């Protein structure tokens, strides 16, 4: 039975339901949404200013004034919203011949594309982590420098205060080489270095790397390194101290191949799950939404749109460590 203009509200409701269920599934699957600090915003731009060196808590004589926190301002970074969207048309032929499956498929695939691109754009932040500029999944050029003017991963990040005197590395190490392949030794060494992290003023601010992010290629190895009862891959029957320290392994299929087609399956990352949102950031001024056409005509395409505003990138780099896996 043909879909007529009187059926438009019902069709729109159906497509909205498809959009919502697909979006829910894609958000649940998205690793990016799990490790990025995803926030809503009403502003076109978001200013981020890392502050360092809080040293305010002192012993105070009861009744005396409490000391005021003084912080050192680090470098600033501003994220500006970008707009993305697309539309699909429910044609007259689809309505006349009641090609409901095609209509449904159009809605589902457009929704999948939107959420996949959001997830891919987040994965690219990590896989392009050694570059200072790249072409993103949408074809736009992205400046991939953090507030200190360096790429996400660098052996000598600066804090933005006290000149160049204090630096830190967030490139994974196995104690000998930088950018090692995933191994137990590399996880242990990088975690140890991160736990000795000091802020710009020299205060201990341990970074607890408790999450491993890998491509499917490395999933099996990562699980054996972390979850085995004994030391994985050796004749050593010692207990595996990493077990319990790494809270989660996130397998991100988008790390296998970067959006420019480069094989990045050996890349792997370590995050501090409680602070990674300080490093990896996404700001949505409008999450992907499905909108119905405002007017419908009997003989014309009914154009449904999916669009969204967001910006993404990284701020203070200390809470995510990365390796290209090829030293």
């Amino acid at each position: 039975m043909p879909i007529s203009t009187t059926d438009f509200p019902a069709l729109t409701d159906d497509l909205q339901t498809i959009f919502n269920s697909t979006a829910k599934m894609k958000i649940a699957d998205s690793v990016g949404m799990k490790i990025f600090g995803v926030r809503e915003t009403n502003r076109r731009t978001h200013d981020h200013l890392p502050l360092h060196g809080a040293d305010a808590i002192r012993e105070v004589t009861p009744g005396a004034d409490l000391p005021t926190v003084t912080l050192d301002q680090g470098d600033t970074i501003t994220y500006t919203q970008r707009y993305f969207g697309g539309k699909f048309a429910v044609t007259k032929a689809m309505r006349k011949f009641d090609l409901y499956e095609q209509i449904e498929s159009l809605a589902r695939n457009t929704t999948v594309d939107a959420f996949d691109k959001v997830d891919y754009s987040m994965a690219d932040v990590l896989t392009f982590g050694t570059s200072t500029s790249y072409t993103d999944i949408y074809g736009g050029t992205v400046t991939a420098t953090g507030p200190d003017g360096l790429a996400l991963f660098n052996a000598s990040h600066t804090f933005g205060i006290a000149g160049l005197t204090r630096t830190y590395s967030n490139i994974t190490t196995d104690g000998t080489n930088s950018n090692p392949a995933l191994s137990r030794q590399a996880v242990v060494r990088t975690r140890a270095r991160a736990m000795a992290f000091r802020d710009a003023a020299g205060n201990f601010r341990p970074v607890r790397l408790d999450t491993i992010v890998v491509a499917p290629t490395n999933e099996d190895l990562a699980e054996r390194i972390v979850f085995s009862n004994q030391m994985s891959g050796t004749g050593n029957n010692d207990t595996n101290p990493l077990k319990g320290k790494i809270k989660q392994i996130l397998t991100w299929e988008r790390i296998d191949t970067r959006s420019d087609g480069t094989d990045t399956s050996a890349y792997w990352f370590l995050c501090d799950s409680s602070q990674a949102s300080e490093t990896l950031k996404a700001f949505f001024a409008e999450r992907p939404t499905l909108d119905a056409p405002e007017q419908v005509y009997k003989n014309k395409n009914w154009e449904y749109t999916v669009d969204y505003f967001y910006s993404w990138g990284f701020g203070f780099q200390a809470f995510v460590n990365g390796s290209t896996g090829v030293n």
Partner: protein
Amino acid sequence: MNMITIDWGRLVNDGRAKAVGVPWSDEEWDAVINKHIPAEYVREGCLTLAAYEETKKENEQYEKSTGDKPLYLLSKGELQIRAKELGIAHTDAATKEVLKDLIEKEIRKQERATAKAAKIDALKDIEKLSEDEDVEDGVAITS
């Protein structure tokens, strides 16, 4: 559209970026941060301590012979004074690199103007000379 904006001016002034919008390459950053070669010299291409020492010596000789430092070694304040002397309008937001570029362009412009003026003078002299010769020739013909 650029999604990310950082304070390039500050980074360049701190020696943490090569120029506005231009981060250091890995090799250059290694020279700045690990070999402690001043950013001004790394911007001039000195990536090793040997190259730095050699360039430093050349600069010392240049300073001895001209009484002046190369522009890239001047502080922002010194560059601002030099720019003012040359009549270059600027604000405090102009980075060292921008001031240096403007001063170099102004110096080149003035050199070109001086060379052009000298050329015009020389042409005038030639014209005058040939006019004198014509007169002399004329005199010679009429006599």
